[in-house]
């Protein structure tokens, strides 16, 4: 008798929720999450099922001063692109000890700044009414989208990180307070996509709106509404 039972979807969902999978196994399970809403729900159910186990991790007081370093990381995130990289190196030298993690941490810290074109002046304070940003994430670990809209150009720049390979295509929508998604456009699977926001949709760029990502067939079944479940979402914030 085999000691390795056939992996059904329920088991795969549990393994993904547990964090047991690595490499290709993890990548294909994440692809399945994007492609199959039932499977994604099963993973979410397992995550909820296992969540009470977090209680048994012991509390360990965090080192003094860590909050200040977190503040510095967040401040660095908001810095203009031309000065952020050197500041990161000075402000957080220890993060560079960990090569792989350091790279992703800094990438995360710089995400907002990096979506900006280098020659665009960047507002540094929360005073400009003309710029809105959003961070989109969801149940796919590592998938992170950063969007920045400038009313001056009516363009939305969207950076995609951590998108698994799938047969489907990432499609961005804006969902205003009325709950009805409006299509913004198809995204590149990595790097920055530049979307000219249609005039009729510009009125929805406000904090009452969410941006959502769905994974759609290559030929969009209906350009007026998503045909697939939301895999990442985030609220727009004016900065």
């Amino acid at each position, binding site marked *: 008798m085999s000691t390795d039972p056939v992996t059904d979807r329920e088991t795969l969902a549990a393994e993904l929720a547990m964090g047991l999978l690595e490499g290709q196994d993890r990548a294909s399970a994440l692809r399945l999450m994007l492609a199959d809403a039932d499977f994604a729900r099963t993973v979410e159910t397992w995550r909820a*099922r296992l969540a009470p186990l977090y209680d048994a991790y012991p509390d*360990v007081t*965090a080192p003094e001063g860590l909050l200040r370093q977190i503040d510095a990381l967040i401040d660095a995130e908001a810095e203009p692109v031309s000065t952020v990289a050197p500041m990161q190196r000075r402000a957080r030298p*220890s993060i560079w000890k960990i090569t792989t*993690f350091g790279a992703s941490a800094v990438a*995360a810290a710089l995400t907002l700044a990096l979506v900006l074109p280098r020659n665009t002046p960047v507002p540094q304070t929360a005073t400009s009414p003309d710029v809105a940003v959003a961070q989109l994430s969801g149940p796919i670990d590592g998938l992170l989208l950063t969007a920045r809209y400038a009313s001056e150009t009516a363009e939305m720049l969207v950076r995609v990180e951590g998108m698994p390979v799938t047969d489907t295509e990432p499609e961005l929508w804006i969902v205003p307070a009325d709950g009805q998604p409006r299509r913004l456009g198809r995204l590149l699977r990595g790097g920055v996509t530049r979307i000219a926001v249609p005039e009729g949709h510009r009125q929805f760029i406000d904090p009452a709106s969410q941006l959502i990502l769905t994974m759609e067939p290559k030929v969009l079944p209906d350009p007026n509404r998503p045909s697939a479940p939301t895999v990442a979402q985030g609220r727009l914030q004016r900065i």
Partner: protein
Amino acid sequence: MIEASDARRAALHDALARVAARDRAALREVYAMTSAKLHGICLRICIDRGAAEDVLQNVYLKVWQRAGSFDPGKASAIAWMCAIARNAAIDWRRSQRYDDPLPSDLADTLADSTADPSADLEQAGERARIFACLDELEPVRASAIRAGFYQGLSYPEIAEAMDKPVGTVKSWIRRGLMQLKECLTREH
């Protein structure tokens, strides 16, 4: 006790909503309420103190960035944050490729079964149930599941720590998880 727990959950939820609105003071409140728990998670999985601190900083950056996507319909605020911390710590751990997959011995993991969960952020009944269900499993299955969950170990790492073939450990964990599901969904 339960009332105090409910009040704490509500306070954390409220603070997280304000973090989503870019309120830095609210992030400090969230930090005060959760940093010991999240640090405990990072330390347990990363083992290295310095690495755990770096991961923890990054976890709060993610909380700051992602608070707007928190969905209270899917998870409690503390569970959402614990998941971010655990995933970040596991990512770090996997990027390091420890030669020794289990620097602290398995007895530490087994001790988790008797640990008195100090946090009162989750509801007592829900918490007690999954621990009771784990206790129903064969001890090796429960140990393997605990090693995977609490220390973020992969199948090959658990197999090495328990000195068993990977296939055996996979079988224990998969069957254990299905038993866990059966126990949790059983009518009481």
